[in-house]
Each structure stands twice: as C-alpha cells, then as structure tokens.
C-alpha cells in the first residue's frame, strides 16, 4: 500500500513538471516581446525594462527555465507585477471563498445527481428517465453565466431570497456564508450534476443487468437495498472517475462564476490577473489548479480500492 502510494505520488511529478514547462513556454510563445505585452499599451521604456529584469527575460531561455523550475520546487511562485506581493500570499488571501464554493458545489451535485441517476436507470425508458436525461443535456448545454444570470434575475432581483453578489466570510457565520454562496453553487452544480447524473445512469444500467442483481431481487430483497447496496456500490468506479475528471470543468467554471457573482476568490484573482497581464500570478494559479486536478484524480484512483476489491495494488 505505501509502496503503491509512493509510486503514484512520484508519477504526478512528470505531469506537473510538464505543466510547469508548458506554463513557462506560454510566455515565450507570445508574438513579439513578452515584456512589452505584459507592460501593456501605455508603458514607458523604463517600465518595460523593469519587467524584463524582474521576470529575468533578459537571460538565456534555458537559464530562465531552470531558475523557474528551481524556484517552484522551493514553493516560490514569484511576485505579482501589479501589487508586488508574493503570489503565494495572494493565493492564501483568496483561497477561502473558492474552497467553500467548490466543496458546496460538489456536495450539492452529488446529493442531486446520484439519486436522479439511480432512479433514471431503475426506471429506464420511463418519463422519469427521460426527464433526468433531458435535464442532463440541458445542464451541460447551458453556459455557466446564462444560468447565473437567470438565477440572479429570479431569486435575487425578483424574489430577493439571496444577495445578487458578494461573499460573506466564514468567520461571520456559516449560515450567512452559505447563503451568499447558494446561487453561485447552484449555478456551478448544474453542469457538474448533469455530468454525474448521466454517468451514474449509464453505469447503473450496466450493473442492473448483472446476475447478482437479479438474484438479490429474486431472494425477496426490497428494491432500495438492492439499488444502493448491491448495484450502486458496483457502479461506483465510473462515477468517481467522472467526479475526478469533472474537477477540471468545475475549476474552469469557478473562474466564470466568481466573476458573475463578484466573489473575491481564486477564480476572480485569475480573471483579474489575466486582464492585467500579471503573468507571475497567472502562472502560479494555473500550476495550482493543475496540481489540484492531479491530486484529486490521485484520490479518485485510490478510492477504487474501496469500491472494487478485485483491483489489486
């Protein structure tokens, strides 16, 4: 077990290393002089020169790459060009809303999508099934900000149940915090829940055709224990896989949702940094998001052991 874990952790290094190189090359691929692009349209020659020095763009490329890789291995993500603060402390300041929002979204999605998917598979072909599948296609066809606008219009401007925008920190009470994040979380959850409901149904359909499910029904078990205990547990592997892969879509959605709802989290930080061409911040955030994605998928792989004892290390 520890050996397997160590090997899997080691295997994440090349992927993250590649992302780091890729993020580095991104800046080099800019048409023209990167320092001029970052400095913007109204920069003076001195400002451009200062940025070139700060980012080390005046040195040979290989040297730049090596020093960039060396620094991130020590956890030093550099300094923001705009606010001059270290990127890591910027991230630390903004991480709370994003963390609460994504956790809230994941919990909400699973709570909705799993029962819907199971029900759709159990009643395959019925109107329930069609309604769930219709909802699923609608869910990933509707862009995040369209859903966001609709919810704000109805529930914030119309019914005034929730605030239109902003974020109440956790320190000011859990209820207020969750209330301020309800609309954003529902917005994000629609996409994620659609993905989950779909794969839950597909996976359950396969499992429900198995002999042991028929046996369980035949020996007189009630439908619920058969569905949850026998079928869902065996259908779990594809479902958790999609939970992991969907994290990428979720993190992308965070950038848009936080902008729509004006939440001061990592997504807003990303959008702002990109607009200001604050490149060290953008690089740091892309690396962070990629690391989260890789790490979550590692957890997903480990969870297979829980659901399927046939999978050996």
């Amino acid at each position, binding site marked *: 077990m520890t050996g397997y874990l160590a090997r899997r952790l080691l295997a994440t290094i090349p992927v993250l290393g590649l992302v780091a190189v890729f993020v580095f090359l991104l800046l080099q691929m*800019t048409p023209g002089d990167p320092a001029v692009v970052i400095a913007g349209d109204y920069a003076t020659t001195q400002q451009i020169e200062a940025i070139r020095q700060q980012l080390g763009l005046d040195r040979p490329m290989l040297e730049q790459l090596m020093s960039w890789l060396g620094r991130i291995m020590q956890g030093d993500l550099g300094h923001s060009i705009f606010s001059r603060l270290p990127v890591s402390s910027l991230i630390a300041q903004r991480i709370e809303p994003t963390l609460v929002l994504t956790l809230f979204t994941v919990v909400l999605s699973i709570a909705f999508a799993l029962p819907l998917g199971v029900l759709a598979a159990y009643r395959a072909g019925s109107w329930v099934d069609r309604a769930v599948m219709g909802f699923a296609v609608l869910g*990933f066809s509707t862009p995040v900000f369209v859903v966001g606008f609709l919810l704000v*219009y109805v529930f914030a401007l119309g019914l005034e149940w929730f605030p239109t925008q902003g974020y109440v920190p956790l320190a000011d009470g859990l209820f207020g915090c969750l209330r301020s994040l309800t609309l954003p979380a529902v917005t994000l959850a629609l996409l994620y829940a659609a993905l989950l409901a779909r794969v839950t149904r597909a996976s359950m359909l396969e499992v429900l055709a198995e002999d042991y499910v028929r046996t369980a029904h035949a020996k007189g078990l009630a439908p619920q224990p058969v569905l949850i205990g026998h079928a869902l547990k065996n259908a779990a592997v594809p479902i958790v896989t999609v939970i992991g892969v969907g994290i990428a879509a979720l993190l*992308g959605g965070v950038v848009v949702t936080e902008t729509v709802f004006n939440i001061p989290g990592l997504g807003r930080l990303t959008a702002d940094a990109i607009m200001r061409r604050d490149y060290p911040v953008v690089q740091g955030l892309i690396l962070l998001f990629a690391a989260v994605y890789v790490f979550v998928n590692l957890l997903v792989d480990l969870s297979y052991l829980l659901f399927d004892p046939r999978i050996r290390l």
Partner: protein
Amino acid sequence: MAKGLRFLRRHPVILFGLVVILVAVAVALAAPYLLPDPKAINPIYRLRPPGEAFWFGTDHLGRSILSRSLHGTRVSLAVGIMVAVVVIIAGVTVGLLSGFLRRFDSLMMRVMDGIMAIPGVLLAIALMSLFGSSLQNVVIAISIPEIPRMARLVRSAVLSIREQPYIDAAVTNGTRLPRLLFCHVLPNTMAPVLVQATYVFASAMILEAVLSFLGAGTPPEVASWGNMMAEGRQYLQRAPWMAAFPGVFLAFLVLTVNVVGDAMRDVLDPRLAGKLK
C-alpha cells in the same frame, strides 16, 4: 443520397437538429443583408423594451438587440466549426501516429496529460491574454485544450484496430505506413471522431462566449453573444432583455448540437452510449 434521406427519416431527432443548425447557418449568412447595422448607435432609443419598433428591444447605446443577436450567430457558428475542424485534424494526426509509433506515443501522451490537467477555460484565457483578441486567436486558444481528448479517443480506437486481421493482411501485402494509416485505419476511426466533433463544436461555442464574456474573446466592437451578455450584466435589473436574448440563443444552439451528437452516438455505436463525453 437516397440512403442519407432514409437515414434521416428513421431518426427524426437528428433530422430536426440538422434543420435547426441549417436555419442558424442561413441566418448567419443572411444577417448582413436582412438587418440594420448591428453597430448603429441611436442614443434616443436607449434601453427600449421589446416592442413593435424593436422586436427584441435595444441596448444601452440604442443598438437593436435583434440585429446584434442574429449577427452573433455568425461568430458562434464560425468559431464552433473552425475549432471542430482544427481539433479533428490535429487530434486525428496525433492519435493515429501515437497508436502506431511506440516512442512517439509515450512522449505525446504525457504532453496530452499535461494539457488535460489545466482547466480548458483557464488555458484558453491565458492564451488569449498573450495573443491578443481576434477571431483567429480565439479559434487557436479554444482548440488547444480540446485536442488531447480527441487524440486519446483516436488512439484508443487505433489500438484496437491494429490488432484486427485485416491490418496484418495489409502489412503482409507490403502496404507502407502512410497508406496503411490513411486507407485502412483512418476510415475505421471515423464514427467516434464524428460524434466527438459534435461535442467539440458545442463546447467551442460555449467557450467562445465565456472568453468574450470575460473580455478575452472577440474584440468588443464585434456583436458576439458573449460580448452582449457582458454588456447586459450591468443592466440586468433595468433591461433584462439585453442578456436574455443572446443567452437563450446560445443555450438553444448548443443544446441542439449536443442532442444531435447524442443521437448520432446512439445510432453509430450503441456500445459507446454514456461512455463518451
């Protein structure tokens, strides 16, 4: 031709979806000739609600939302189609070569893993902020995060095709690699590629709108649905129609493409149902 018609009659969902898409294409092509200039500013008629003079209302500069919405179809369809073409070409090339060349495979798949670990929206906006906003750059920025999935799909199809007896037969006959790939392998990967391409088409339209919405997509003077929704954001309370029409158009078009994709997948390969995407 007759075979195609019979196919469509047997699958009304695909027929309906294709009709909707064709109508959208027709609207996109005809928009400049039928409608007033989407950029015509008319301050006297600012923020008019939908009515007789302006069917869809006007925006904060008095521009017709109807005209702008229909012009927006051009941007979305153009980006969707171009991205689908770029992703098919790049994804199929990488997938075919990885499926056959071991050394290329291990390198390429690691690169694909790396790209896939970065959220697509994030990668696309980062690319846009560096390249600057233009339609061509939007297409490139959206294509790059979409390529790995297509490449993986083609690769996995190729891996199972290369074990087939007809490939052995072709190799025994002395078929060279390029001919083998194009005449024997490629045609057999087309079904999943086509289905995946419809999903790429749909998600490219969403991503284009997201980029424009965040201010990193098509230049602000272009009437794209994302730009319109970004402008409508400030007026959500006073003039909800500004964001509503482009939002509904976008959602409807994407929904149609996704439904066609699902229907095609069920027809072309029932075993794939639920696994793709």
